[in-house]
């Protein structure tokens, strides 16, 4: 998403600082594709203090292009994290009260095992031989990380977009380990339109001759052009027409008149080019392919006999669904479908639609009503959980 975390030049950054856990051969991860991942690493960050009862842990799940650096200065770029406004003392995810964890997803490129990391069996980068992963696989891996931290039950699991998919997957598959869940700007399954956009992005990467059938790390090439196109196309889907009009309109970039050429005449073009070029500095092209595929495969109803309400049978989890009026990538109707399924089980659910023109990206931005809603929901849940104020 519009992530303020990026470096201005060079290779995908190597990650310094932060914590990680490596699971050895004795504890393989059973992936949905049928493969057992024998050895893998998860990189994660924590904020705040875990209380003695280990009852105040919040797992924040990042979106497609996010990472574990939720808040504070990023160790590579020095810039703020993707939810810097949300996490910290006195913020909705109040680090004076809650222990906030974020794990770089399996398949990611910021320290967790993914296609750019070394396959211990071959000593070479996984590249295109990395196994296909699903959102459920990401969550299974996170469960092992939580076991490693000794946390039996999360006070809350939350996230936006793909982070919301993970939050749903957690609450549905491990209801006894989740006290509350906040899936934001998300859906119970990836829509045909969203799969279509992902297909365009993937084809752009694979059409880049420097992709080298996924072996660019071995070949010493960089599919930057393809990845930048994928990012630009995706970025448009994160915004709204109204926001683009408000921000850019048809304003020209550093010029008084049209150039009658294919230069970035318009500010919106210049903005997209910037988004594309900064993204390729911090993200791995193969990770982009694998993670978008994981989102495409996400379909909770399909895993529960085609009936979404089955996924929520007798659920003890307190849910809060949040959507944004101008989000056309994960529109309110998607959240409402989840709410209806939860109501069919008389589950404990809240649902708020926030009025904004900022599109899908609104969940990363300063939206006072969104913050107020989330803080209020967490506070209400914390009282029920017996957490001190």
């Amino acid at each position, binding site marked *: 998403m519009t992530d303020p975390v990026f470096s201005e030049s060079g290779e995908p950054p190597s990650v310094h600082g932060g914590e990680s856990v490596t699971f050895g051969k004795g504890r393989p991860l059973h992936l949905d594709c049928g493969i057992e991942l024998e050895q893998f690493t998860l990189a994660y960050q924590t904020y705040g203090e875990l209380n003695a009862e280990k009852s105040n842990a919040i797992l924040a799940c990042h979106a497609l292009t996010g990472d574990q650096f939720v808040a504070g200065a990023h160790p590579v770029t020095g810039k703020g994290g993707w939810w810097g406004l949300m996490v910290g003392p006195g913020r909705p995810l109040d680090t004076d009260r809650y222990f906030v964890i974020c794990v770089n997803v399996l398949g990611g490129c910021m320290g967790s095992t993914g296609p750019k990391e070394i396959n211990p069996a071959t000593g070479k980068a996984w590249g295109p031989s990395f196994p296909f992963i699903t959102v459920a696989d990401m969550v299974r891996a996170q469960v092992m990380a939580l076991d490693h931290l000794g946390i039996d039950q999360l006070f809350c699991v939350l996230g936006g977009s793909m982070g919301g998919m993970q939050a749903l997957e957690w609450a549905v598959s491990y209801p006894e380990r989740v006290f509350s869940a906040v899936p934001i700007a998300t859906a119970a399954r990836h829509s045909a339109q969203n799969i279509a956009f992902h297909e365009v992005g993937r084809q752009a990467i694979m059409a880049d001759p420097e992709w080298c059938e996924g072996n660019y790390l071995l070949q010493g090439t960089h599919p930057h052009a393809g990845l930048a196109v994928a990012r630009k196309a995706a970025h448009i889907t994160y915004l709204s027409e109204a926001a683009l009009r408000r921000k850019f309109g048809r304003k020209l970039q550093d010029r008084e008149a049209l150039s009658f050429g294919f230069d970035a005449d318009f500010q919106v073009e210049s903005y997209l080019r910037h988004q594309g070029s900064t993204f390729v500095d911090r993200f791995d092209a193969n990770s982009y392919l694998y993670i978008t595929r994981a989102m495409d495969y996400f379909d909770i109803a399909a895993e529960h006999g085609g009936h979404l309400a089955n996924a929520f049978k007798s659920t003890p989890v307190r849910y809060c669904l949040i959507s944004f009026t101008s989000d056309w990538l994960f529109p309110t109707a998607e959240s409402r479908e989840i709410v209806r399924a939860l*109501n*069919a*089980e*008389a589950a404990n659910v*809240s*649902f*708020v639609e926030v009025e904004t023109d900022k599109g899908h990206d609104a969940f990363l931005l300063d939206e006072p009503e969104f913050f107020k809603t989330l803080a209020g*929901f967490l*506070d209400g*849940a914390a009282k029920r959980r017996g957490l001190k104020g």
Partner: protein
Amino acid sequence: MSDFQPAAGGAGLRVDLLAIANLIGTNSRVLDVGCGDGALLQFLADHKDVDGRGIELSQAGVNACVSLGLSVVQGDADADLANYPEQAFDYVVLSQTLQATRNPRQVLLELVRIGRRAIVTFPNFGYWRIRWRLLMGGRMPMVGGLGEHWYETPNIHPCTIRDFEVLCSDLGLSIEHQRVLDDEGKAQAGRWANLFGGQALFMLRRH
């Protein structure tokens, strides 16, 4: 929609809502349909340890409720009650909303399907002031919880207490409890209820 004032000793709760709260047992499961700003749900959570849920039409109302930590979804009585399972709640409350639904008959049936008991309040169109206005002024009355002009009121299905009793009988619903309130929230009863009661409160269940 209501002209009621906060009740004495009711922690700021409106008298009509306090009358509802008094009917609800502790530790019960409650669905408040048209929960507004969540005042009743908050009161029930604070004073009766109720596991409460709400449905509210206005997004501003929903957002305010969730910010208070209440479990509320955006929705409306006509469209969304059908999603809920049978007998999932001890009480389903429909306060000052029945007259604004498109299909009050169906809504009543849904209430007693979802809840073991339904608590319904509505402005009584048989109230003497309303009759007087219509009789003497010859215009649509705008009193007793029916405060808007005919062309802008959301109250498309007003009824009298007697109308409501007949409908309950037609639907085979038992009236477990019934009271009427005047403007000050004082109870009125007896055969003159339909004339002197501005507001009606019924607790119903299926036979």
